[in-house]
């Protein structure tokens, strides 16, 4: 019997996944549980396992193609067994596309209108080949049908007069980031507050701990690790910042799961990833540091699990290593707040009437003003400052 291998669903929000690499060729034998294909969805590349043993009879979605969740991507069965004629077709892809870009709050009728773009098959194919959203092209054919000529004219009109070095299709991780970022900016009432922290205590602490563990041949802790630890404590005490707006309700989390934005350069994944340190409030600094390194390594090699990269309640992003002193991050929607960490720079400040050189660090909190007002956000920051300057221990 022929078994369908379908595009798996890894999360509630996942609509489609991208075929990254087929690990087996058509005609090759596979055994149940053996990885058959690499699929990328929601920034994660995952190996999909064979649901049955047999021969990989047919691959119906080529590499780099996006496939809706639940659609067959291959068939497994006995050699020579006939397979259903399924191809993840152009039209399907285009319609999916249309559905995905339709803004969430458009009235239903308009949304349906957008889905029903009249276009010739050739126009659709050309638009797809050139990476153009066909809904943007005005049609001049009968009944407003988008024709070959319309697409070619659109391409001509939008031709860049500037020399183009390369054209990079936005797909996979970067596409998810793009959708995520604009959704966040469109949805959230962003507000940001900045506060200066004297980093003397954490500089000293990091130097001490790193020296200890580097002596054991391990990599030291980072300021980000320390910030995770401190923020976890401050969040536990100011839980409103550790929340998400779900429809008409604000869900305040008990778990403190802190995502850390990292720039990953790896064979299997590259770009912005957000590994999530679960229960950060219950872990020691070293545990946080170990966990963070492990997840990043898994992501780099394509072995990250879905849990590694989802389920966050708050995010920290640090650009201090580039010398950036202050920046305003975009909230990792649907979370409520994000902390932007700047560089630690020695500066003169006045302590008891005297100039003193102190390592200073700016922290910026972007928060969703729909659910958190200025005062509670400020209280969280005030608490965080005190933890970092006076209380934190490993």
């Amino acid at each position, binding site marked *: 019997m022929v078994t369908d291998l379908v595009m798996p669903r890894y999360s509630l929000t996942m609509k489609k996944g991208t075929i990254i690499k087929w690990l087996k060729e058509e005609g090759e034998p596979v055994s149940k549980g053996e990885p058959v294909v690499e699929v990328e969805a929601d920034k994660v590349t995952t190996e999909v396992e064979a649901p049955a043993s047999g021969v990989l009879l047919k691959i119906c979605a080529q590499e780099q193609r996006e496939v809706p969740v639940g659609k067959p991507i291959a068939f497994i069965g006995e050699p020579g067994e006939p397979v259903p004629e399924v191809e993840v077709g152009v039209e399907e892809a285009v319609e999916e596309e249309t559905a995905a870009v339709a803004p969430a709050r458009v009235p239903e009728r308009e949304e349906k209108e957008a889905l029903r773009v009249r276009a*010739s*098959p050739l126009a659709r194919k050309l638009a797809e080949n050139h990476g153009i959203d066909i809904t943007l092209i005005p049609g001049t054919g009968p009944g407003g049908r988008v024709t070959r000529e319309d697409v070619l004219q659109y391409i001509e009109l939008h031709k860049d007069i500037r020399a183009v070095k390369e054209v990079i299709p936005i797909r996979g991780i970067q596409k998810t980031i793009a959708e995520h970022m604009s959704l966040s900016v469109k949805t959230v009432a962003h507000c940001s507050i900045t506060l200066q922290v004297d980093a003397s205590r954490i500089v000293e602490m990091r130097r001490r701990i790193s020296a200890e563990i580097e002596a054991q041949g391990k990599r030291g802790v980072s300021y980000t690790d320390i910030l995770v630890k401190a923020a976890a404590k401050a969040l536990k005490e100011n839980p409103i910042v550790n929340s998400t707006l779900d429809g008409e309700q604000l869900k305040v989390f008990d778990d403190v799961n802190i995502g850390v934005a990292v720039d990953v350069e790896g064979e299997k994944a590259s770009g912005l990833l957000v590994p999530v340190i679960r229960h950060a409030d219950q872990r020691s600094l070293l545990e946080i540091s170990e966990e963070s390194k492990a997840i990043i390594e898994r992501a780099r090699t394509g072995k990250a699990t879905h849990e590694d990269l989802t389920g966050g309640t708050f995010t920290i992003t640090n650009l201090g290593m580039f010398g950036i002193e202050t920046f305003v991050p975009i909230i990792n929607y649907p979370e409520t707040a994000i902390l932007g960490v700047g560089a630690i720079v020695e500066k003169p400040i006045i302590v008891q009437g005297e100039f003193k050189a102190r390592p200073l660090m700016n922290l910026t909190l972007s928060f969703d003003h729909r659910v958190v007002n200025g005062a509670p956000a400020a209280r969280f920051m005030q608490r965080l400052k005190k933890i970092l300057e006076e209380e934190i221990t490993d």
Partner: protein
Amino acid sequence: MAGPFSYDVAVIGAGIGGYVAAIRSSQLGKKVALIEKDKLGGTCLNWGCIPTKTLLATANLINEVKRPEETGIHAENVTIDFERIRARKDAVISRLVDGVNFLIRKNNIQLVPGKGTIVSKNHILIQKANGAEETIEAKNIVIAVGSEEPKPGYAEIDEERILSTRGALAIKDIPKSLAVIGGDIMGIEFAYIFKAFGSDVKIFEEASSLLPTLDSELGRTYQRILKKNDIEVHVATEVKSAKARLNGKVGLSAVSKGSLLELETDKVLIATKRRPLTRELGLEKIGVQTRDGFIVVDEHMRTSILNIYAVGDITGGKMFAHAAVAGGIVAAENIAGLGSAINYKTIPTCMYTSPEAASVGLSEDEAKQEGYNVVVGKFPLLASSAALAMGEREGFAKVVCDGESGEILGVHLIGPHATDIIAEAALAMKLECTAEELGSLIHAHPTISEALMEAARAVSKKTIHI
């Protein structure tokens, strides 16, 4: 409402391009004059497509009964009553001319007999058969005077032994031997007709293959078919002279690959490209731009003079009746301000011999020259059950596609019903289907049109019956 003019539109020439322009103009509320010096229906109806098609219908029947091994029909002593065949041809013509006459009256078109000469951009001088003259004043002029038989330098057409196609259709006796000069559609059709009627036929074509304007596989395949049919084909052969001899025959000399070819034949038929009838129209006086005698028009059928339009053979390019019809409609609609445009890309080319040949769009070579990443899908009729049932083996369907987009660039067919099936291909191209849609459309079984579907599937190597 012609305002200061007696007519909104004056059409010169009542051939298929002209009378269609007149009818469409009338439908759009214009006051129309239609000027014709000879017969309604022009070349197509009187001396071209229609009489040829009636003779081809008879020729096909003759060929059908001549293959008992295929049909199981033994018809002994089949004789041809050429008188009767000619009478039927004339009856068909006269019936269709009556039809055109009826349409002209029905649409309140003023028929003006006589030869029209353009004397100003709004005036046409009419010279009647009896020598009388009158001048017609019109806001817009549509030139639809058509083309005439070629006048080659190597022979003098006497319509006795050296014939034009028009003369060949009026012929009273079937010649024992016939040399057809020109191996494009017209030449092959006439060769086929006279072969069926019993003539010994030879074709001479200057180009390196038959059907030189079409996809080369059509010409190559047809050359084989004609040879099987016992028609001698000389390609890459330039006729140097054809002269009537005292013995009542014609001496023909030609050069093929550097060597001289001499032969004697009863009759010679000149079936090369037709000439534009721009002479004596008065075009140069009013400044209508021409190229090699053909009138230059844009996609709206407009000439270089704003209110003067031209349609049909006189504009060169695809000299087909159906192109003239399309042009006539476009011209009329532009005069009425509707802004239509002609699209030559989807005009089919058809040859009505058996098996039929038909083509639309670009040939494989043209597509390559235009820089497409060409992918071709082919399906031979040998693998078609419908063709087999009909006792036909010759032919194929060929779909030329752009590899990147799947755009159908051209379709080329040889086989039964090819001239009808090509309409499906043209529609697919017009509606911008890709090979994907054409190949996934369910075609009735058993039909020859399945071959087109299979050829479309072959583009992505998904043919079933091969």
